[in-house]
């Protein structure tokens, strides 16, 4: 940059965002943001005005997941800021790099219960990787620099920057720093050589290895390295919900998702394995089931960028801390040096292959409209789409029945399980990847949590397709009531009710309704060909269950078959 220019804090914020190459942001104005919005009026940033701040946070999240860049959202003080909270928590749980900028009341009013004041740095303390309250305009450039650096490095995550209104009107001689100075933040990049070597030796010796991968593969862009690694050691790969697309579903070594709604063969493979190679995962309870019975015969190698994940839930034998991609590269080198024969796992692969044939994912297809069939049809017709999901049954069917082959093509709220995430996240994904067909596979419950964003996608011409698997139930909760509460469907029926076609039309979107299997394909084509934001109301079988299922707290080989 070099030459310093005198400018207001609001202008300095915009210049800082330029310096971070921010092209798109999602926001909603308010009183304390007026100076910033005045600058945004003719700024060279594509600002998308949402209809609820929660959607701004989810859209920034979806944008970040689809592109690998940092997503940015902006909200005013008080309620604007608190409306971001769910979206920030969601990004935190799934380690998604977003920078949330909030307006704050002027400094002299802070702490006085001023109009639209909320202590947002206090509120978001446990759900951000870090946050800042800017108390002097001089600090603004380095804080923005640090915020983007922290969000996008190490284990990624959300960072919030709270800017009082009078800071945005104060003036500084602006200069954007080119370096950050963070004494307490030095993420490990390359793994410890000796540990990697120990890992390589264990891998060579293993006869029944399983590679268990998570979102870390996607955030470190390690799909290529994973593929090479899996093929060299010839081991089955199980991809968690967060890792869908990190390894091709159709690859012969892929055994699909582990855990509660995972494939039987993934769970059996984990339970029988003698070496579990866990990469970029956090041994979530939805994956491990009963921890004491998880992978009982396996030694465990855990590769993760976050040292705090090592031995958090499950005791690890060989921890390797660092970036998954760089570690996998070195691991492959070591193994290639050590390995003599390739046949060590042939028998194991044959056994896993047999489980695959015996226990495929399946559902009963009859003349009724099955939600799984709809997902399969989307896969059949638009296999290169980005699939975003809501939370619940829709999410599990989208994970089970679509065959993902590329990273960043499956976007879902994994850790927090946020209903209402999918639609605004799809909007963010589409902004980031306009070349892709983007579907939000939704439930009628989840969609209604952020359906107001129809106004945003229509106004800004963001043609996402919402495929509502409409069963008139909060389906996943109903499924648990069905199985564990004697079918007492307490407050889970929502069949009253909404005409989603008319709702879409009221907002100026295309609305379609499908009630029969043979209408699915034509409706999908009509939606994609229209190039318009579209809602398809798929009226599906009401009491279809997600299968298979490991009940909460059970070992992952104690599996229920639920196909009707």
């Amino acid at each position, binding site marked *: 940059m070099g030459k310093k220019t005198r400018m207001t804090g609001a202008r300095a914020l915009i210049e800082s965002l330029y310096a971070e190459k921010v092209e798109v942001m999602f926001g909603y104005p308010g009183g304390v943001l007026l100076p910033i919005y005045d600058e945004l009026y003719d700024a060279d940033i594509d600002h998308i005005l949402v209809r609820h701040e929660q959607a701004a946070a989810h859209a920034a999240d979806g944008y970040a997941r689809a592109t690998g860049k940092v997503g940015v959202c902006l909200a005013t003080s008080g309620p604007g800021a608190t409306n971001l909270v769910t979206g920030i928590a969601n990004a935190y749980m799934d380690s998604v790099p977003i920078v949330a900028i909030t307006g704050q009341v002027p400094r002299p009013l802070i702490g006085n219960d001023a109009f639209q004041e909320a202590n947002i740095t206090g509120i978001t303390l446990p759900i951000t990787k*870090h946050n800042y309250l800017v108390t002097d305009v001089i600090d603004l450039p380095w804080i923005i620099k640090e915020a983007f650096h922290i969000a996008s490095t190490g284990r990624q995550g959300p960072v919030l920057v709270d800017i009082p209104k009078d800071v945005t009107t104060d003036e500084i001689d602006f200069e954007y720093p080119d370096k950050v100075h963070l004494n307490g933040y030095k993420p490990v990049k390359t793994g410890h050589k000796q540990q990697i070597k120990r890992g390589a030796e264990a891998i060579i010796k293993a006869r029944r290895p399983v590679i268990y991968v998570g979102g870390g593969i996607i955030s470190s862009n390690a799909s290529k390295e994973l593929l090479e690694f899996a093929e060299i050691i010839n081991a089955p790969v199980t991809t968690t919900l967060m890792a869908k697309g990190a390894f091709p579903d159709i690859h012969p070594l892929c055994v699909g998702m582990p855990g509660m709604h995972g494939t039987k063969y993934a769970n059996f493979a984990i339970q029988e394995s003698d070496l579990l190679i866990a990469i970029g995962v956090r041994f979530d309870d939805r994956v491990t089931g009963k921890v004491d019975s998880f992978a009982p015969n396996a030694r465990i190698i855990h590769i993760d960028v976050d040292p*705090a994940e090592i031995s958090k839930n499950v005791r690890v034998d060989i921890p390797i801390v660092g970036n998954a991609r760089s570690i996998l590269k070195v691991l492959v080198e070591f193994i290639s040096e050590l390995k003599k024969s390739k046949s060590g796992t042939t028998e194991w692969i044959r056994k896993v292959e047999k489980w695959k044939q015996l226990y495929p994912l399946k559902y009963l297809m009859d003349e009724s409209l099955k939600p799984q069939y709809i997902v399969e049809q989307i896969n059949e017709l638009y296999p290169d789409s980005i699939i975003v999901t809501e939370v619940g049954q829709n999410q599990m069917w989208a994970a089970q029945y679509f065959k993902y082959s590329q990273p960043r093509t499956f976007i879902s709220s994994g850790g927090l399980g946020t209903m209402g995430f999918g639609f605004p996240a799809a909007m963010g994904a589409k902004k980031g990847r306009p070349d892709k067909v983007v579907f939000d596979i939704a439930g009628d419950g989840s969609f209604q949590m952020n359906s107001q964003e129809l106004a945003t996608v229509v106004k800004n011409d963001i043609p996402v397709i919402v495929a509502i698997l409409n069963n008139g139930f909060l389906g996943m909760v109903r499924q648990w009531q069905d199985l564990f509460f004697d079918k007492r469907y307490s407050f889970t029926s929502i069949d009253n009710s909404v005409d989603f076609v008319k709702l879409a039309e009221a907002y100026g979107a295309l609305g379609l309704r499908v009630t029969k299997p043979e209408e699915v394909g034509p409706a999908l084509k009509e939606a994609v060909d229209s190039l318009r934001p579209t809602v398809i109301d798929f009226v599906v079988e009401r009491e279809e269950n997600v299968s298979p299922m490991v009940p909460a707290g059970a070992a992952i080989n104690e599996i229920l078959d639920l196909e009707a």
Partner: protein
Amino acid sequence: MKHTLAILVENRSGVLTRVAGLFSRRGFNIESLAVGVTDNPDISRMTIVVSGDDHVLEQVIKQLNKLIDVIRVSDFEPGETIERELAFFKVKVDKGNRSEVMQIVDVFRAQIVDVGVKSLIVGVTGTNDKIDAIEKLLRGFGILEVVRTGTVAMNRGAKTVKPGK
């Protein structure tokens, strides 16, 4: 088990909340806490004494290390540190027992830091145990008020807790 932690942090507002939050979320009660600036004015040092499950504490330490404002965390080995705290006791006295209190003060190498007509303030530094012991003895005279700092601790010998590079 009881642990004494030394935590080097950026000398900024809000850091204490971040650190304390990690303990409270996991049900740890901080037994004592002392904070002060170091030889580098940008860095403060906290000494925290906690007791609880070792595995959970290991998690807390890892999480502390993740905080951006935390520069270094050191879990002291028991027995390898010098630990001290400071306490003031305001003791009720009269003509009859004033000298008795002063004898106790002498034995503990404490100090009388304030003298009033009806009260004395006894200042004492020492280990947690020593302060508990003098408190027990002074209680007999009637303690009007107590204030204790948290423990501060430092490694014996040449070993240091420094920010590093």
